[in-house]
């Protein structure tokens, strides 16, 4: 049984970590981009960002004053048991979000879409979002928080099979250029691409691809992995760098996630996880241990399964023998 008190304490720690500490994988990626950048202004911006991460860590202040719209991803091992059940878990995550807003402090960004009213704590109607997933083994719970801005850098389009890879490249470039000018997307970014599924799945998958995979991670499908690298290269050949200045640092990495879609369509989404790519994760075990990490490990073979049965064929054969 995982105690609800431990869940809430851990969630509050994660909120502060996400807001203040840039994840190592993104930091390394940005340092590499800064070393490769030749544009004077783009280089200056990247150096300023590297100094900013350092200042945030030293002072324990939020790295960006737009602390985004905090959200949660929760993953449970199949035998995990939570004190008070999932309803208590959701309450703990909402409470931790509200407390961290005052304690870090974060900006209370969440308002009602029509009345623009708020509770000054980033909690409200459908906020924070909480998404769930499961794994076949384990009695642990993974908590992942992502703080992402929400105005620019994301787009959706219904493409068709005939549009092909050329159509994918066109929409990808259009999205990067439209929001890259003046740096509205706050690039260089981790670009997530969702392909397939229903329209809503495409959006959800693309966002998860941007926010829940670390820099350097590749899709297990070798052809998709090759396309990820090709799109990364394509984005960095636009000629545009940080803030839309002349340069070549647009994409720190590109992640693609696919889902089976309608036979007639090929929906696509593009998401940009910005210069302040804020995510933090922890695994809570049934024996009370808490392990913090920066890799969400969200996309697993189980999450990407393609057939009715999960258990791989080879294992089943072994059992028969």
């Amino acid at each position, binding site marked *: 049984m995982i105690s609800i008190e431990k869940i809430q304490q851990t969630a509050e720690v994660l909120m502060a970590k996400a807001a203040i500490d840039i994840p190592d994988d993104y930091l390394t990626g940005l340092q590499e981009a800064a070393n490769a950048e030749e544009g004077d202004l783009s280089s200056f911006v990247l150096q300023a960002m590297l100094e900013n991460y350092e200042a945030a860590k030293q002072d324990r202040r939020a790295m960006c*004053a737009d602390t985004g719209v905090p959200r949660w991803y929760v993953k449970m091992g199949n035998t995990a048991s939570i004190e008070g059940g999932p309803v208590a878990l959701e309450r703990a995550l909402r409470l931790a979000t509200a407390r961290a807003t005052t304690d870090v*402090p974060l900006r209370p960004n969440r308002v009602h879409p029509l009345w623009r009213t708020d509770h000054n704590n980033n909690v409200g109607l459908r906020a924070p979002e909480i998404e769930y997933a499961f794994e076949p083994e384990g009695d642990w719970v993974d908590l992942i928080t992502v703080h992402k801005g929400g105005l620019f850098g994301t787009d959706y389009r219904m493409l068709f099979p005939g549009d092909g890879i050329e159509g994918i490249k066109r929409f990808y470039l259009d999205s990067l250029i439209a929001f890259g000018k003046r740096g509205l997307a706050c690039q260089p970014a981790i670009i997530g691409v969702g392909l397939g599924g229903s329209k809503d799945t495409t959006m959800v998958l693309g966002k998860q691809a941007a926010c829940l995979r670390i820099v350097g991670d590749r899709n297990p499908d070798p052809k998709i992995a090759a396309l990820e690298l090709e799109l990364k290269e394509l984005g960095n050949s636009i000629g545009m760098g940080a803030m*839309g200045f002349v340069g070549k640092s647009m994409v720190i990495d590109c992640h693609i996630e696919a889902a089976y879609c309608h036979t007639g369509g090929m929906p696509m989404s593009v998401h940009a996880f910005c210069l302040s790519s804020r995510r933090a994760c922890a695994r809570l075990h049934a024996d009370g241990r808490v392990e913090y990490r920066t890799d969400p490990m969200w996309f697993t073979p189980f999450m990407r399964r393609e057939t009715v049965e999960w258990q791989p064929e080879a294992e089943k054969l072994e059992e028969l023998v």
Partner: protein
Amino acid sequence: MATGSGKIRRVSLNTPVTEEALRDLKLGDVVYLNGVVYTGREGVYKQCLEDGVPLPENLAEISNVNFHCSPAATPDGQGGYNVGALSGTASFRFAKWLDRWFKASGAKIIIGKGGMSSEDYRKFFVPNRAIYLTTVGYGTGALLGRGVKGVRKVHWLEELGLAQAMWMFEVEELGPFIVESDLDGNSLFERENAAITKNFEKLYEGTRPATLRRYGETDNRSDEVI
């Protein structure tokens, strides 16, 4: 005062800034500010320019630098404030108020995210002898937070709320900011866009327009979305 570092020129300015100091600034210069900088956005503009609420006395003598910003700040329990991070908010939304604001406030520098079009600079900034500085990144919230040494006064905190109130910050080497427009109304972003657009024909080779078009869609990639 200007010091060279590589190809980027760094300049420190005192507020209120003088016409002479502004005339010296070139697109792409990096600027740090000392003195007083105040925030003001749609809440202040609407209240002062449309509802007739008078501006703070002698505003232009205290500062002529207006930051489009809402701080991540909390009261410290002793009548003061803890200011955490500062970041600019996108300025293109506020263009319609600026001509009247320059005349009423005497502001000569606007700071924010992303700038405006050179058309706006020529219409509103040039006649009022004002320029635009953009924040950097745009995520240098922690660095800007360090530049704030105190809160001189907060105007209209109750009437407008924390995000929209006019915060008057005492600042030391607040920055970095980049000169986005000069006194002639030229825009650094537009200069950079023009250079990058030349590459697009080659870049788009091997791509295909979507079969399903959208109303309002443009294929002219020298257009901007702001």
